[in-house]
């Protein structure tokens, strides 16, 4: 039981083009999955958090109920099954109709899967905001949509940013499950390199170092962004001399 670090380094240099291609795809899937997932989460989380309004007309009431039921099912299903199984199932199920590649199927699956987690994160974020915020917006005559977009979402995103950022870290790692549908991300590439060199421990060691590097850099960037959005604008407040 030992790792030949010298050999590992050689393999790393020799196969850098394969690894870097894998890293690019891993980052692409993680970022697209997180961003699109956040958008899906904002929509679905908002649908779940909007309270029933007694002023709604009957069809609106039915629509709201239906929307809440669909979102509930969506979250239940996508949080309750492994992403790898979802990827395999939907890839093969829809391939005859859509004729899609594993690549495009993977992008959609990771986004939809992340969206289910984001829906719950955003719902919690929205519910944690004081009801007075939306009451004030309503009292100005703003619509529910305007209130959501201008007042509630910015605060919900700010309050839940650490949890949202955590999803990016999760996606960097969990995108490896998409190798099951032939997505050439970092795990897929590493496995091919390992297979051709027959140096499994060395290659998987390299792979772990690369994942750690990606998640560490992502964490540092997220921390910097978090500091920035938490910094309240500092302005010099002149005392009122009037």
């Amino acid at each position, binding site marked *: 039981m030992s790792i030949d670090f010298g050999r590992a380094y050689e393999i790393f240099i020799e196969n850098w083009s394969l690894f870097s291609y894998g890293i690019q795809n891993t980052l692409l899937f993680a970022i697209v999955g997180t961003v699109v997932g956040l958008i899906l989460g904002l929509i679905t989380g908002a649908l779940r958090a909007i309270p029933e309004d*007694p*002023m709604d007309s009957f069809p609106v009431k039915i629509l709201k109920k239906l929307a809440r039921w669909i979102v509930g099912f969506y979250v239940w299903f996508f949080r309750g099954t492994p992403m790898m199984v979802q990827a395999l199932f939907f890839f093969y199920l829809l391939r005859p109709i859509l004729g899609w590649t594993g690549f495009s199927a993977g992008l959609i699956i990771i986004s939809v899967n992340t969206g289910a987690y984001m829906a719950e994160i955003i719902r919690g974020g929205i519910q944690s905001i*004081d009801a*007075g*915020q939306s*009451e*004030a*917006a*309503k*009292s*100005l*005559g*703003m*619509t529910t949509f*305007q209130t959501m977009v*201008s*007042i509630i979402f*910015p*605060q919900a995103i*700010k309050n839940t940013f650490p949890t949202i950022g955590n999803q990016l870290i999760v996606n960097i790692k969990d995108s490896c499950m998409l190798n099951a549908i032939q997505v050439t991300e970092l795990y897929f590439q590493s496995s091919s390199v390992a297979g051709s060199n027959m140096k499994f421990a060395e290659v998987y060691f390299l792979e772990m170092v690369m994942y750690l590097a990606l998640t560490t850099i992502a964490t540092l960037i997220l921390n910097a962004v978090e500091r920035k959005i938490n910094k*309240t*604008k500092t*302005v010099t*407040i*002149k*005392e*009122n001399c*009037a």
Partner: protein
Amino acid sequence: METVIQVQHLKKHFGDLQVLNDIDFEINKGEVVTIIGSSGSGKSTLLRCINLLEIPDGGNILYKGTDILSGKLPLTTYRSKVGMVFQSFNLFANKTVLENCMIGQIKVLKRSKEEAQKIAMQHLEEVGMQNFADASSTRLSGGQKQRVAIARALCMDPEVLLFDEPTSALDPEMVGDVLEVMQTLAKEGLTMAIVTHEMQFAKDVSDRVIFMDKGVIAEEGTPQQIFEKPQHQRTKQFLSRYFDR
């Protein structure tokens, strides 16, 4: 005198609790109406019903003759004409003071950014907060927040401004600043309905005082009538706690 808001047979209950029971009253143009009464008498609920933050169970609310519950007047249009100042200020936490005053103008009244900014600055000056325009709204003291909230409501050019216990959450030292602003607005002829526990202020500023008790209007009249010659036993009891000390 033109009636801006007319409330007819208004009813509201929360569960088994009848909070408003057959309320009738009106707010006329240029008038300052204060609503007094002990906690739980339904004052705030009445004000919140007028702005439809609470939906009445029965009765009508007419805005310049149009029933606002009929759907003939879009709810957002109605609300933009009826401003509200809250006990807990409710400034938008993600916006600066100036942005708080601009957003309604831009989103609801469709004013240009330049115009909205100009109007916002005018009203911030009116409440003495122009020097704080770029400050984050979360960084202000309670009294400052409430003055910004008043400016925010004024920016919409409301036909009537509703105040829901605007000074109840303030340090005693800050109360004066806010009341001063409201007094000036009253003098300028702004139509206002104010729920308050500041009896001296109510006496000074009101054209009409409404005393509420257990979900009904127990007594209504000029400040002289209510504060000097109250007729109803409950009104006398209530006021004695404020003035016979």
